[in-house]
């Protein structure tokens, strides 16, 4: 890894990690071009807007996951926390839009705080701490909701938040965009971003440098929890109900987005923009499959989407593994 050893001959790329990130952007562009050339209404306003409206939830969760993974952790609780957030938001939406959004996001923030404390104070591996939180969040959501979905009254500002547009762009997509811009600024243009990367690179070294590792880690889990809660708010506002059983497997979709975006699960490296591209790419695969079915040439059931997503994940992971082997010394 260090620059002491003579570079092997196959090491031709100057910055392989950046190449991996460009790879996901290139794949995304290629897929969009493919769809545009092949399907009539692929780049129609309707398709683009409904695509962004629906997938904003997954992108928000992927953003939080990106930060957690950069610190070398993982957050398996996001699906359960989103379900909890949707239930809490649905109940609170009776008191207005602001109450709904704040309560749902706040519930997520609280779950994230507990995750952070369990990881930093009890020193329990993030994998287990957040797995337990997933169970606890689903349990709490089901208890609060009495094992059924919690309906939100229509014709309220809360429903508008999920279903209407602002300046011709879905409101959830604005939320997603804002979150990613903030995330990008924080990670790449603020001192705190450097610190988060440093903690992921080496906790011991960061501690010796005087960084408050525990505070940074707790903050990152809180951010992930809050974003998952916000995704739950959008879920409730978009579909008009708080859904205590929704969100199963969202955490793994988020992890896949982050991995496809070239972020290493070992921590210390990561890109917000590439995570966004990764989430969009995985979501777009499903969209393209729908259009392909619409053409009638093939008839692939919706079940193929997970097979294709898995194959894409495999492809990206293998490419990255090849690049990573090129980087290593042995």
């Amino acid at each position, binding site marked *: 890894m260090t620059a002491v050893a003579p570079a092997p001959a196959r090491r031709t790329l100057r910055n392989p990690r950046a190449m991996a990130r460009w790879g996901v952007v290139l794949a995304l562009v290629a897929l969009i071009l493919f769809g545009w050339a092949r399907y009539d209404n692929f780049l129609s306003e309707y398709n683009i807007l409904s695509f962004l409206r629906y997938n904003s939830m997954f992108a928000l969760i992927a953003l939080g996951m990106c930060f957690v993974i950069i610190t070398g952790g993982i957050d398996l609780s996001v699906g359960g926390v989103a379900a909890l957030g949707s239930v809490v938001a649905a109940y609170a939406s009776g008191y207005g839009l602001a109450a709904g959004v704040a309560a749902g996001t706040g519930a997520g923030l609280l779950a994230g705080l507990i995750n952070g404390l369990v990881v930093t104070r009890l*020193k329990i591996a993030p994998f*287990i701490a957040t797995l*337990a939180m997933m169970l*606890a969040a689903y*349990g*709490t959501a089901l*208890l609060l909701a009495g094992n059924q979905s919690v309906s939100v009254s229509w014709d309220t500002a809360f429903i508008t938040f999920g279903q209407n547009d602002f300046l011709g762009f879905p409101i959830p997509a604005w939320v997603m965009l804002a979150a990613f811009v903030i995330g990008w600024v924080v990670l790449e243009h603020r001192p705190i971003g450097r610190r988060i990367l440093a903690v992921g690179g080496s906790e011991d070294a960061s501690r010796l440098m005087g960084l408050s590792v525990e505070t940074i880690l707790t903050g990152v889990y809180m951010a992930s929890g809050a974003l998952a809660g916000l995704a739950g708010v959008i879920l409730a506002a978009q579909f008009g109900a708080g859904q205590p059983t929704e969100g199963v497997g969202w955490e793994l979709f988020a992890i896949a987005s982050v991995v496809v975006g070239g972020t290493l699960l070992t921590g210390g490296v990561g890109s917000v923009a590439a995570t966004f591209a990764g989430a969009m790419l995985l979501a777009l695969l499903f969209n393209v499959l729908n259009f392909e079915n619409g053409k009638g040439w093939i008839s692939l059931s919706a*079940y193929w989407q997970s*097979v294709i997503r898995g194959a894409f994940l495999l492809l990206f992971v*293998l490419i990255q593994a090849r690049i990573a082997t090129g980087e290593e010394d042995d």
Partner: protein
Amino acid sequence: MADTSVQVHRPAEAAPRRASMAEAVRRYGVLVALVLLILFNAAFTPNFLSWQTVNVNLTQVCAIVIVGVGMTLVIAAGGIDLSVGSLMAISGTLAPLIFMGKLFPVSPGLGLALAFTVPIVAAALLGLFNGWLVTRFRIQPIVATLVLFIAGRGIAQVMTNGNLQVFKEPTFQFIGLGRVLGVPVQVILMAIIVAVAGYALTRTVFGRQLLAVGGNPRAARLSGIASKSISRWVYAISGALAGLAGLIVVARNGAADANLVGLGMELDAIAAVAVGGTLLTGGRASVIGTLLGALVIQLVRYTLLANGVPDAAALVVKAGLIILAVWIQQRAKGSS
């Protein structure tokens, strides 16, 4: 029983008194918890001490234990296997497709023989694929097995187009419904698997090498252990056991639903392993512990349900239980 908890390279001698206390809690905590739960239920839950209750609880826990044994081995070797639930779905949907002759025409006898073997072999091969990704490309186990977690259930759904397959086939369903001398066949299978895996882990070279790979991969490699080959085997075993669990589940239900078979199993199995005292970072493992861990989780749920606590609250309790168990583990490790 504690003898089955094995670990490699750890200065066990000369541990101070407090450490031995924490160590005792770590070793016997699950067992004590199980005994307390049984005593509590015997005193307060009506009809608890009946053959029927024992059977209900054991059959509920069978699939989790069988998958959990594979997970114990994978975790002991320093990995993790998220794909087990999806592999269960593949094997569980493959078996009825075979004996109902939907894949290829077969005679009934041959079809049944193949229905028992092909799904397990397929799951083992997919497990081997996981191991290949981990060892050949040095992909982190979470990511490597995430591929089949996502794609595996999709493959099972595509094979059946997501439809429920209902069947009535007594010979095949014997592994899920049959009894020998009053004991359910699946419980016997579980006992055999736990015994064999426990023996292999503690008393064979393979087991010691596996723990060495999980405890300190570099030292293991330098001491000449074929660590890559061991890792691949471990993932293949985990796959095969998930395949068997898939067969048991569909045989018990008389129906194969690719959407539901094994859903969330990876988490149940990991929870059982964690509660059972296996170190999640590898190097120390107990197969009996996993059995006890699964029984404790199941009995806690049963106790709560039998005493009128809703299932959702039981989830929250389970979460607390996992954290508590792992915390005790860590304390014992830190003080030794």
